């Protein structure tokens, strides 16, 4: 009697040769993804690979290969195949070897399942906070809670290479609890399933701009960024923080990254052309064109990565089971060998 199509597919998937074919294809495709720079804008591929190849890359989403639906479908197919293989073998024989092999394969499915969970239900956001600034986590799609940056600090080696970045954080009213903790790179804050990572930093300047008509505005401008004063006239303000200005030499050089002699270089730019600039200390102001700029102050800002992802725990459980299964298998094999 002829097999039904579904039955035929399961039989094919349950054979190990299919699993290995899928594995080899996934490996080859992954390798391809390391040769094509990932995640650039479509124009980039047109310029670097030419029209036709560039089009092929973007149409097949080879530029976002690891997130492409067909790549994820392939991983799903691998999962199915592994599962069917494992079940089939369990039905045939039972021994420590088969048992450990089953654990290992289920562990891999758990890892991939956890990764799918992360992809589907994981949620993360980058939040930049100046010292003293506060933000509601609900605004970023998390459970309600008030996150405040109390202090940000950089420790340096003697040669001014950064040793550690750390942020003193307060998280209030998050799922009925308050947290007050210093985080650093490799030491995130954990609040239930929520984790907050130290991810970047910079300087933030408080500047008051006063236009010719007397209108004034107070703005917070991150270092090396720009602020549109007047879009219609292509007029913008740029600001660069100079932490330790060297006053013994001409030009604008910083002796160290520490705020020992802090200045801010502000520039008024019209149509990408600098039409006026000045160096300011905190509290000073300058007239550039028809605008008056005052530097009210400056502080660090801390770039925080806030994440909620329960898939991580499935993945890590999978990791543990995989290693445990391998170890049991290795020991069992050794015992069999010694007995023989």
């Amino acid at each position, binding site marked *: 009697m002829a097999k039904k199509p579904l039955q035929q597919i399961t039989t094919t998937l349950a054979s190990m040769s299919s699993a290995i074919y899928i594995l*080899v294809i996934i490996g080859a495709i992954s390798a391809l993804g390391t*040769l094509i720079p990932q995640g650039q804008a479509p124009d980039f591929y047109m310029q670097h690979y030419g029209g036709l190849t560039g089009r092929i890359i973007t149409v097949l989403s080879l530029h976002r290969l690891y997130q492409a639906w067909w790549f994820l479908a392939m991983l799903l197919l691998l999962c199915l195949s592994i599962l069917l293989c494992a079940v089939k073998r369990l039905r045939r024989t039972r021994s420590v070897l088969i048992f450990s092999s089953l654990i290992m394969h289920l562990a891999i499915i758990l890892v991939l399942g956890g990764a799918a969970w992360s992809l589907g239900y994981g949620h993360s956001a980058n939040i930049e906070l100046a010292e003293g600034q506060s933000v509601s986590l609900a605004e970023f799609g998390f459970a309600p809670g008030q996150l405040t940056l109390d202090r940000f600090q950089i420790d340096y080696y003697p040669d001014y290479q950064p040793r550690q970045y750390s942020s003193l954080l307060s998280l209030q009213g998050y799922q009925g609890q308050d947290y007050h903790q210093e985080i650093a790179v490799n030491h995130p804050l954990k609040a239930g399933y929520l984790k907050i990572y130290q991810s970047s930093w910079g300087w933030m300047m408080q500047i008051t701009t006063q236009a010719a008509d007397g209108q004034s505005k107070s703005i917070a401008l991150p270092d090396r960024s720009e602020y549109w004063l007047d879009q219609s006239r292509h007029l913008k303000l740029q600001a660069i923080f100079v932490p330790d200005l060297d006053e013994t030499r001409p030009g604008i050089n910083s002796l160290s990254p520490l705020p020992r002699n802090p200045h801010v270089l502000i520039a008024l730019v019209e149509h990408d052309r600098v039409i006026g600039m000045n160096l300011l200390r905190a509290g000073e102001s300058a007239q550039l064109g028809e605008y008056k700029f005052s530097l009210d102050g400056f502080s660090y800002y801390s770039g925080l990565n806030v994440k909620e992802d329960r898939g991580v725990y499935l993945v890590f459980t999978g990791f543990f089971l995989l290693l445990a299964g391998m170890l049991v298998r290795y020991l069992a094999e050794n015992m069999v060998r010694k007995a023989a």
Partner: protein
Amino acid sequence: MGIYEDLAFSTAFVAYTAAILLSVWGFAAKHEHVTRFADYITACGWAANTLALILRTISAERLPLSNGFEFLVAFAWGIVLFYMWMRYRHRLQAVGLFLLPIVWGILAYAAVEMPASQKAITPLMPALKSNWLSVHVATAILSYGALAVSFALAVMHLVKERYAQNKSTTSRLYKNLPGMDVLDESCYRFITIGFFLLSMVIISGAIWAEQAWGSYWSWDPKETWSLITWLIYGACLHVRQTYGWRGRRSSVIAVIGFAAVLFTFFGVNYWLVGLHSYA
């Protein structure tokens, strides 16, 4: 590099060089005592290699596992560790002939090709300040060491088989190489050890990345190539278990697997990054 560390490094290098020459002599002339002497010299080289790593640990005030140069010196150390273990437990002849030149090449590359800036002791950047760094790199060294031994055994198997195919079974190389079954079995055992350790490398890296950046996997070229390596060895073990692939086919996969190991380190560092850097 401090002067004492430099001295220890040079001693290791000279000893490994001498061990290669002695191995060739012992093998060609079938002098058992020369081969044993080569083992002693190898052990001396390994002791000096260990000393170089210890001296660096002292002057850097951390484990010597955090830049390319330190990794290569430790990689050579790991290969020789498994080589000596193999000589002690499995007592296979002639493996040094195929394996020690790899060690020699790695150290020569580290000494000559690496720019001085990469050899200097540099303080750890914040992302590297984690205990997972030690677990991750230490398991990598051991894994790569075991896989290097499996590679040498696989190459020996292929050489021996080629001689058998050409009916040149009277040649000295054929006669003095261990039997094909023994080579095959030992190769398999080193792959299982290396594969387990490689799993630990990838897993510790993922856990560490989750702690440092909040993401356990981001498909960067290094991660991806370590996964590809893992898939190759995984496939190798499966076809052996289920389809009984032995001998030549199994050896070919072992060679491809080790090529992937080397590519994960050298290729990704020097070639793929270069490819990306125009962007």
